């Protein structure tokens, strides 16, 4: 079994406006725009690969208050760098 990702992202598909800033900003490229349309007629972002580091960059570049929630593994590895507070 592959190593568990250090973080994960949840995108609120109804709040997302599909601007794509998080997709572009994600360092490991774990986000993409969904091929499906949400009820606003935009392609919302989705987390598609188990490669999230939990850095939180997508949360801060997202213009919506709560479209993105970032999680981190409870037992953080010592080498996990907190990119959001660099």
């Amino acid at each position, binding site marked *: 079994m592959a190593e*568990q990702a250090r*973080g*994960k992202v949840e995108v*609120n598909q*109804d*709040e997302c*406006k*599909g*601007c*794509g*800033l998080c997709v*572009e*900003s994600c*360092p490991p490229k774990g986000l993409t725009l969904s091929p499906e349309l949400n009820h*606003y007629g*935009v392609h919302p972002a989705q987390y598609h690969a188990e490669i999230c580091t*939990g850095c*939180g*960059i997508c*949360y*801060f*570049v*997202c*213009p*919506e*208050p*709560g*479209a*993105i*929630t*970032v*999680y*981190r*593994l*409870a*037992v953080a590895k010592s080498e996990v760098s907190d*990119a*959001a507070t*660099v």
Partner: protein
Amino acid sequence: MSEYNVSQCRTPVFFDRFERKDENQHQTHYCPGCGHGVAHKLIAEALGELGLQDRTVMVSPVGCSVFAYYYFDTGNVQAAHGRAPAVATAVKRSNPGSIVISYQGDGDLAAIGTAEIVHAANRGENITVFFVNNSIYGMTGGQMAPTTLIGQTSTTSPWGRRPNNEGFPIKMAEMLSALEAPVYIERVALSDAKHIMQARRAVKKALQLQKEGAGFTMVEILSPCPTILKMEPTVARHWVADTLIKQFPLGVYRDRKPEFEPVLVPQKGVAELLGISGKRLSDEERHARRQHTRAKTIKVSGFGGQGILLLGQLIAEMGMREHMEVSWLPSYGPEMRSGSAHCDVTLSHDRVGTPLVSTPDVLVAMNEPSLRKFAPHVRPGGVILYNSRQLPEDLKFEGLTVACVPASEIADQIGSAKVSNVVMMGALLEATDCLPFTTAQAVLSGLVKNRKLAEMNEKALEAGRNYLDTEVLVGAVAGPDGCGE
């Protein structure tokens, strides 16, 4: 498998629901990829981290971010276009424990509100200004802003901004850092993740400084406007990085405390300034005082130069000395003499709701035009004092006490037409019993130092009182207290 914990999520500094919208109330009204959303988030995060939410007052501007008050679960005020720093000044000074944020766009701050921001910064107001600069007017549809770049097209500079016609982009951070008072000014950009994190630190630092009471802080935030720039959100962001930042260099423009010795002036209370006892009255004393004062709304009107405004001020000051709640609201043209002037005075035993008197209990008309203008608005049972021997023939007033007092004539006989307003004051006190004569004498002697004039005032006050007492009242029969009620 280990569990995941939330590390970044919607901050409670935002309202749970944004009530302005019918549906999707958790979504802002901003366009996809708008810089305001990110700026809002950085501010909200910082307020949450610093624990300032409960004492923050956010001043929303005019512009796309006009609805900031729908988003931030803090105190909120929405200011007239460009006036946010002035409003923020008032909020901060009247409530020094609050954290006051003026959130403004470039049209708001750098165009219509240039004066307010410059002077708020120059006074070193302890507020934080977040200046979102996207180089264009967004909400109104892409007109040229003061920050529009040279050569940049807009609906009002379709051939590109030309320095020879529209001037150069205004660089507010540089401009304000030329002043002495500001404590912290930094320009940041929302162009990519790295710069957004830098902006996050700047926002937090500015708020931290305000929390410490340091002084004026401003963060200029270069921000993408994908809709007006007609670019994809990611492209607009690159445009900020490649073009906007080149014209508006990022960096800290001010990070120091101004050095000066504060000069403190001893504060005098109203009572001390008036030379009267300022002690708070007990309920009984207050009640006792009510026996010899009456709540009235009074309108004094006439030509400018007749002492109209002064008469109103004198009555208000008398009320103040009698521990009444008072207001005085002048209205006059630009002429110092001969224009029309009037003022509204409220004498009340309770707090005054509005200083505006639209249906007065008492009208003092020092000339015919103002009698014709205001008499129809006098409250039934009210009093009209008219500066003449008799009413114009065509005028009749039902249900009012009308007293014609030729104040100007009487004043002239006493020695100066100037004191006609004091004659009228004597008549007014006699007709309405609203305030004691002794108070009027005290106020007048406090005001006039010249002995000759003071004597004239004494005589004028007495003459007005006597005239009303001895001459015939015209109109409705006066009540037992002489005021027709």
